[in-house]
């Protein structure tokens, strides 16, 4: 379990990172926290020719509060975001989801954006990004663009070649959020997770693990909103989820697609209950 050979370059700026990426295309990978990429390298599942280490680029580790958004750079670590007062206040759904990601040591190195772009089936954060309507700042060699998360994380989409995602923008949403998750074992990779976020009358629900990618679930959100602060009936949650499905159902040898679909309403209900608790104690 040693990586295949590669070149290593330490980028000192975003510009340099992007230039290196553009020159090498599919043969290059960006290395941030390494918690997702390194196991792929050691198991030789990924064999890039060039690793571009972005860990020493200045200024990418900031969490900023903007007029309508919370902006996180590519080196913002998961634990850092989890503990950030800005995130807890203005992007509570993100903080709630992060508390369930892996364990403290992994979160100290793993980055928020790294987790998002890895987009593992069932991962918590990509679903949250879709549901909240997050955006990515993408740095190409010749231009910068801001794109909705769905453009990169949706079904069949992927991160563009030769470009670097430098920031994620979370819509600024003061208000409580609830989160719940079921895994095969506590602390292990999630099977199904649900986030519910309330910002005044705007409700968002993210469901991961039912389809391969994360789902934004507006119908589920409406059902929860209608009954708040009481938890909705499982039957109505199940029906709402059906309406929000997009793309083929996901299952694996351990947790079938049927299980995921049937347990998701239970998880949604608990996330709604968690949100009610958060709202009550605020």
């Amino acid at each position, binding site marked *: *379990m*040693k*990586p*295949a*050979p*590669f*070149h*290593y*370059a*330490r980028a000192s700026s975003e510009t*340099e990172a992007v*230039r*290196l990426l553009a*020159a*090498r295309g599919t043969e290059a990978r960006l*290395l941030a926290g*390494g*918690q997702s990429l*390194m*196991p792929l*390298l*050691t*198991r030789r599942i990924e064999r890039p*020719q*060039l*690793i571009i*280490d972005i*860990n020493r680029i200045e200024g990418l580790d900031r969490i900023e509060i903007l007029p309508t958004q919370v902006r996180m750079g590519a080196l913002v670590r998961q634990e850092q975001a989890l503990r950030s007062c800005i995130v807890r206040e203005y992007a509570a759904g993100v903080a709630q989801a992060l508390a369930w990601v*892996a*364990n*403290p*040591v*992994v979160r*100290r*190195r793993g980055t928020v954006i790294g987790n998002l772009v890895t987009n593992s089936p069932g991962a918590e954060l990509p679903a949250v990004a879709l549901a909240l309507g997050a955006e990515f700042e993408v740095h190409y060699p010749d231009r910068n663009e801001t794109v909705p998360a769905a453009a990169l994380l949706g079904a069949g989409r992927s991160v563009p070649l030769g470009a670097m995602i430098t920031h994620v923008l979370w819509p600024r949403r003061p208000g409580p959020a609830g989160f719940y998750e079921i895994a095969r074992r*506590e*602390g292990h990779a999630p099977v199904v997770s649900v986030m519910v976020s309330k910002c005044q009358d705007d409700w968002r629900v993210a469901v991961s693990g039912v389809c391969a990618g994360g789902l934004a679930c507006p119908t589920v959100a409406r059902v929860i909103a209608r009954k708040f602060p009481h938890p909705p009936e499982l039957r109505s949650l199940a029906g709402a989820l059906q309406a929000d499905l997009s793309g083929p159902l996901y299952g694996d040898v351990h947790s079938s697609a049927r299980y995921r679909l049937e347990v998701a309403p239970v998880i949604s209900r608990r996330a709604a209950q968690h949100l009610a608790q958060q709202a009550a104690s605020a």
Partner: protein
Amino acid sequence: MTDALGMMAGLRVTDALLDAPLDISMTVDGATVAAGVRPRYLLSDFLREQAGVGGVHVACGHGVCGACTVAVDGTPVRACLMLAVQADGAVVQTVASLSELEGDTAPGKDGLTRLQAAFRQHHALQCGYCTPGLLVSTALFLSEHKAQGRPCPGRAEILDHLNGHLCRCTGYANIIAAIESVLA
């Protein structure tokens, strides 16, 4: 078009070129260790082979078990998930530096730190393979809590911390007891 490394774009370079060594230097448990290393050389291997540290154990090699945990510039890191070149210029501490990581200056009795003595007292190790990484990680966990004014993490927080460590021998109860005993 050539890229920053002077290679023709699209030309597949031979493995030998890809493995060309880079000179790095880091401090490991207070000693400077310098070597020319291949880019793909893992930090876990560097610490064991170049720095001669026996207390970094590779158990899973894919970042799940925590046995290889070391401190890099004061942060707990799974050494098997880091390239040696990434730690160029860093201060690395392993279980050999445990008393500094615990924030104690005086060596304990029998040359064991408070945490090590607690592990021994509570029989919190059997084969010992997961132990050094667990000690480093726990020392950082506890001193960080102290630094943030939360010197007594509760059981839920301790269990969250221990989610990052696998032990196949002890059944964990004694590890939890050992950690709780140093908080008392």
